[in-house]
């Protein structure tokens, strides 16, 4: 009871506005004849019929799969590449201009090339995500690895820590806050890129569904699909933040302690 109360409070604080907006939308759109603004009830019916029904397996799961796969490859590859660049000044010198150039490309620009290389395939969707979304993680990880305090480096050397210990127990945890900042941008780019690439070049998937419904004037479907995309973005961010909170628990604690002092 005592613990449930604050939880209820937070829930109420966070939920009142979305709930209010939904209610306003529901009543304002009720009985609407406007072809572009179908009643919310219609949108939700379509949503339930499509996304809780047949399309969950044919479009949602593949989209999610490609999105998650693309993000995970970007995350792992970005951390690995960033670590390498952070550790080796020579590698950094050599790779810096290339990395800066690649990350300056607006990610959707990669679409035509991705199409050329991979055709209209799931591999193409994933490849587009990786090519466009990996850079923030690469650069942030490299920065974080490099930012190791001189005294910590001295400590690692004087206690003769092994390379693996220096990497996994010192350098990477030290870089973790920056790595997560990079991963967050990578996550956002991943969502954008799966949608865009599916819109331009796919025969299924949520992105394809949204654009296709718009082109065939299935307006309720356009709205429902957009709702699905919003939910994917929102829920994936929630999961991401939960993981970050666990991994960076020490940092939150440290910050709280510093503020308390």
């Amino acid at each position, binding site marked *: 009871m005592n613990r449930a109360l604050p939880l209820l409070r937070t829930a109420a604080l966070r939920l009142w506005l979305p709930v209010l907006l939904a209610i306003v939308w529901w009543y304002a759109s009720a009985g609407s004849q406007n072809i572009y603004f179908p009643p919310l009830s219609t949108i939700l019916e379509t949503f339930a019929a499509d996304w809780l029904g047949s399309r969950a397996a044919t479009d949602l799961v593949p989209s999610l799969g490609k999105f998650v796969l693309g993000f995970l490859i970007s995350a792992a590859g970005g951390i690995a590449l960033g670590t390498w660049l952070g550790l080796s000044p020579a590698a950094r010198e050599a790779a810096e201009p290339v990395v800066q150039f690649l990350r300056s490309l607006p990610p959707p620009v990669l679409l035509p090339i991705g199409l050329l290389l991979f055709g209209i395939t799931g591999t193409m969707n994933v490849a587009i995500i990786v090519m466009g979304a990996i850079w923030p993680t690469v650069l942030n990880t490299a920065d974080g690895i490099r930012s190791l*305090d001189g*005294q*910590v480096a*001295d*400590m690692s*050397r*004087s*206690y*003769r*820590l*092994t390379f693996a*210990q220096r990497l996994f*127990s*010192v350098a990477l*945890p*030290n870089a*973790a806050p920056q790595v997560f900042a990079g991963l967050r941008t990578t996550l956002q780019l991943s969502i954008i890129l799966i949608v865009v690439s599916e819109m331009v070049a796919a025969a299924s998937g949520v992105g394809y569904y949204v654009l296709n419904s718009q082109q065939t004037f299935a307006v309720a479907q356009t709205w429902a699909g957009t709702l699905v995309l919003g939910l994917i973005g929102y829920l994936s961010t929630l999961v991401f933040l939960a993981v970050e909170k666990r991994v960076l628990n*020490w*940092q939150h*604690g*440290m910050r709280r*302690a*510093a503020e308390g002092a």
Partner: protein
Amino acid sequence: MQQSIIETRTGDAPAGEAVVELVDLRKSYGTGPSAVQILDGVNFEVRRGEFVCVVGPSGSGKTTLLKCIAGLLKPSGGRTDFEGQEVTEPPAKLAVVFQDYSRSLLPWMTVRANIALPLRNKFPKQERQARIDEALESVGLAGKGHLYPWQMSGGMQQRAAIARGLAYQPDVLLMDEPFAAVDAQTRIDLEDLVLEVRDRYDTTVLFVTHDIDEAVYLADRVIVLSGAPTTVSHNITVDLPHPRHQVDTKREPRFAELRAFVFEQIQAAKSNTVRNRADA
């Protein structure tokens, strides 16, 4: 005149083998015309079991000296030996307790994990746990190993850093102004703690400080550095009885004498530095 009361050792070899030996150690930072000579031929040795304090004006190169001994910096001339071997990389039987405890313990690990980290390649798990427990106990942190460094006070963090050094069971423990950042009362506690654990672990200690009282109170021998470019200006045997006692030892006339002598040497070194700088 004071030289006659205070015996400054130059030639006479004390008992015990030298574990740390500095031979004409030189270190300059930078290259070419912008190079600054910090250490300008430093010679002294630390014998097994000794507690040696190094004092010197701020900026005289105490940290630089310690890093050369620890194998963290390459000398520009001369050499430092550890147990008869020239130091080219950090020696395995040497541990360092750094000045800034807040940057030396890893905040993403509990204190226990911090202490365990350097032990992982040295000892089997069972022995590791026993060593950690013993080290924590001897610095008064028994049962606190599960805490993160940032959950501890400054004094506790420095105790934890000392425990890490002790658990590593080095032959020589180097300490760089380890108590500069803690309050006076904690400092007194930690001084006695260090004397206690060095007896318990039978460790040789080389202790850098800018606090003259601390140096004379702790040391068997005090090395006074001149101002930069730095050499050893005095090498003083502290003939105060053991065990030391915060009130009784500091009340002894001999303590006051030694203290005053070291103080004067450092003042002289400081004004020399100023003169050298003005000349340059």
